[in-house]
């Protein structure tokens, strides 16, 4: 299946079930305790990661804190 991650089309191996939670592990997403996930245009609550199924055509953005400035 193909999903869009951070603006890039990404092909993933077929799996019977794939949640946002398992996708974060599969992709070894950096700083996973702090990453904000935008799922099909909506910010996903952290406790919804386990129950949100990822399907072909979904769009995900991983958003990170950036604290610098001085």
């Amino acid at each position, binding site marked *: 299946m193909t999903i869009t991650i*951070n*603006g890039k089309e990404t092909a993933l191996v077929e799996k019977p079930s794939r949640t946002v939670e398992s996708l974060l592990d599969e992709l070894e997403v950096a*700083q996973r*305790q*702090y990453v*904000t996930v*935008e799922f099909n*245009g*909506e*910010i996903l*609550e952290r406790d919804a990661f386990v129950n949100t199924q990822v399907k072909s055509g979904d769009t995900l*953005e991983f*958003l*990170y*804190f*950036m*604290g*610098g*400035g*001085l």
Partner: protein
Amino acid sequence: MLTEEQIERYSRHIMLKEIGGKGQQRLFDGRVLIIGAGGLGSPIALYLAAAGIGSIGIADADDVDLSNLQRQVIHFTSDVGKPKVESAREKMLAINPAAQIRTYKEWVSAANIIDIISDYDFVIDGTDNFAAKFLINDACVLSGIPYSHGGILQFDGQTMTVKPGESACYRCIFPEPPPKDAIPTCSQAGVIGVLPGVLGTIQATEAIKFLLGKGDLLTNRLLTYNALRMKFREIPLKRNPSCPICGEHPTITAVKDELDALTVCDL
């Protein structure tokens, strides 16, 4: 009425149909607060002074350090040891003697921020720690004052503009600050010196556009920039109904100091 000297100084603005004499007058009447006189604050302060923004506030408790000079272009070698707000004020006045500069040699906190921002039309976040970034968001949202968020690290930057009650705020995306020391910061992880020049100039552009009432602000969009790959990306955002400060059932109704995040950037 603009004087002859003003007409000449701002001629390249005045000839733009989006600005003209009327727009330049709006800039003269504009009041912008810059929080942080560092990497982001440097280009912001220089450009806003040059643009003729009538009243500019600049807040920072720090003194200029030798390690600042690689990117904080408003401060010169001879300024090392001087309060950053003083150093900044001197350069802003050298560019534009007509600018009214108000300096705040203090860190913003829950105790002073509401009072400080109330004198301004637009606020720019040029700080380097999450405690300040969340505090600025909360104070601006609660006070209904639009602001520009900016963040930089290593080769990456991000910025967004927040119009309280109309567009997504920082807490719509990041409900709570990360715990202390969870996320690396510029002083720990480094930053390429030109990066705040790019991001700060975008933030200053937003302030100017807001005062002019022209164009489209960077609202409901997070603009990210990577200097190594030389790529800009725009991530569409919308207000989050469960945002703790601007959502349907806000749990934050007053400003608070995020003590856990306070020393994140090793101030």
